[in-house]
């Protein structure tokens, strides 16, 4: 039995307007798992993922990561914990006007002193490491191009490289392929999977493409109306379950 790396207990998120985005999420994640979260848009997938590193502040609950509660951490503590959580976004979120390699180097900011990092004083070693990570995502030729000269799929691979450079133990990917064509989607997912296998990252990916989810996941979590609706290995995800996850309204069908 693998050790539990992330334990989420009674996680709730209510927006100021009263919308209950997350009602009561309990989830236990083991080291090295590749989890894909599926569910209709507006179900709370994104809020859930963003709650884990508190880009979206949870209303209540516990998120135990490496034995410590992220929800209770103060700013300085949170910064330290975030270094261990890489995040990949739908919109890539690179600094478009900076060279690719600089964007990868940004993964190291959390480990640097504030001013060294702010002024971008990366040393030779750090630059070489960033270049070698770019090589691993197949972008060594693009290292000194500006990020916005790259295609969408390439930009997402740079974002993966940035996350790898954080040397995290978990990677969160929020709809990483939603704005990519099928071809680059596959390439990005392959690189993400490869990186996670090689480095032993635990990975949580939000996807709305069920076929991709089935192909890459070890375990699938279905979220509907802010609650976990399905949680199990890919082979247990029947077409009926998929249909009821994506069905409108609330049919009673507990896990």
């Amino acid at each position: 039995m693998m050790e539990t790396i992330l334990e989420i207990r009674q996680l709730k998120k209510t927006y100021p307007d009263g919308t209950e985005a997350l009602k009561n999420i309990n989830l236990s994640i083991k080291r090295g798992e590749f989890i894909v979260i599926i569910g209709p848009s507006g179900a709370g997938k994104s809020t859930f993922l963003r709650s884990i590193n508190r880009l979206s502040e949870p209303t209540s609950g516990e998120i135990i990561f490496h034995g410590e509660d992220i929800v209770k951490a103060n700013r300085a503590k949170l910064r330290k914990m975030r270094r261990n959580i890489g995040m990949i976004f739908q919109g890539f979120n690179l600094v478009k006007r900076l060279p690719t390699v600089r964007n990868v180097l940004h993964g190291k900011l959390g480990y640097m002193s504030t001013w060294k990092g702010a002024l971008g004083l990366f040393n030779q070693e750090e630059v070489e490491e960033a270049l070698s990570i770019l090589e691993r995502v197949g972008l060594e030729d693009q290292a000194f191009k500006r990020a916005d000269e790259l295609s969408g799929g390439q930009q997402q691979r740079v974002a993966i490289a940035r996350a790898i450079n954080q040397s995290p133990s978990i990677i969160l990917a929020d709809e990483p392929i939603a704005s990519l064509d099928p071809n680059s989607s596959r390439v990005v997912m392959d690189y993400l999977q490869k990186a996670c296998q090689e480095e032993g990252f635990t990975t949580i990916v939000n996807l709305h493409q069920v076929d991709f989810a089935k192909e890459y996941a070890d375990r699938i979590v279905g979220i509907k109306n802010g609650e976990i609706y399905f949680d199990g290995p890919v082979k247990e995800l029947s077409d009926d379950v998929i249909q009821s996850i994506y069905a409108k309204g609330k049919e009673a069908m507990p896990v």
Partner: protein
Amino acid sequence: MIKNKETYRQQKKVQNSIFTFLAFAFFIFSMLQLNIVPERIVRSIERLGYIFGNMFPPVTNEPVSLFTAAIESIQVAILGTILGVIISLFLAVLAAKNLTISPYLGYAIKGFAGFVRAVPALIWALLFIVAVGLGPTPGILALAINSIGMLVKVYGEALEEIDMGIVEALESAGASKVQVILQGVFPSVMKAFTAWSLFRLDVNIRYSAILGVVGAGGIGWELMKAAQMSRYDEALMVTIVIFGMVMSAEVLSEYMKKRANAASAQALN
């Protein structure tokens, strides 16, 4: 329906003629009140002719001091701009509502910038002359503070338009606030910041020529001296030098803008 339209049109017509009449009445009233009567205008044309006659050919008795004064004006403009840019960068980050640490502080800074902007550079120069005495220092301070009024506003607007995804991405990597701003936010708005700063330098060079008139250093003082001594030929020479200064500033800032654009275009290829 049609009838309504007709009456509306008539009303509009009446309104317009009332406004035209009022504007005309105000014009006449102002002329009389300010004692601008035709004979005075005619007389001033005579005087203008005399002044123009004495302007040519333009001369200068002290080419060295004129040259130093021109250089001093440019120095005042450059230092004032640099000081203004540096302070504005700090203030704009605190003023932008997506980056500020407190919205109230943001409003306070925007209010301050609005006030500073509303007071003309010349008034600031007079205030600073009282505070620090004559010379280039009050000129530099006046231009700096006047620049802050404008730059905080335009920098702040540029900052408020950035893609917050960049901020989220760097924060989620454990970057601190200062790191996020210097590594993520500033590179994203550098183009807008450079363009506005160059524009402001251009404006400040124009202002710096004027500031000397009140004693805040630079070439304006030379113009003042020549005019007070009725040396119109010297005044013209100073004016020509100011014209040259302003023109070359404009050409230079155009060139730098083009170069900045060319650099980014080159990076795109």
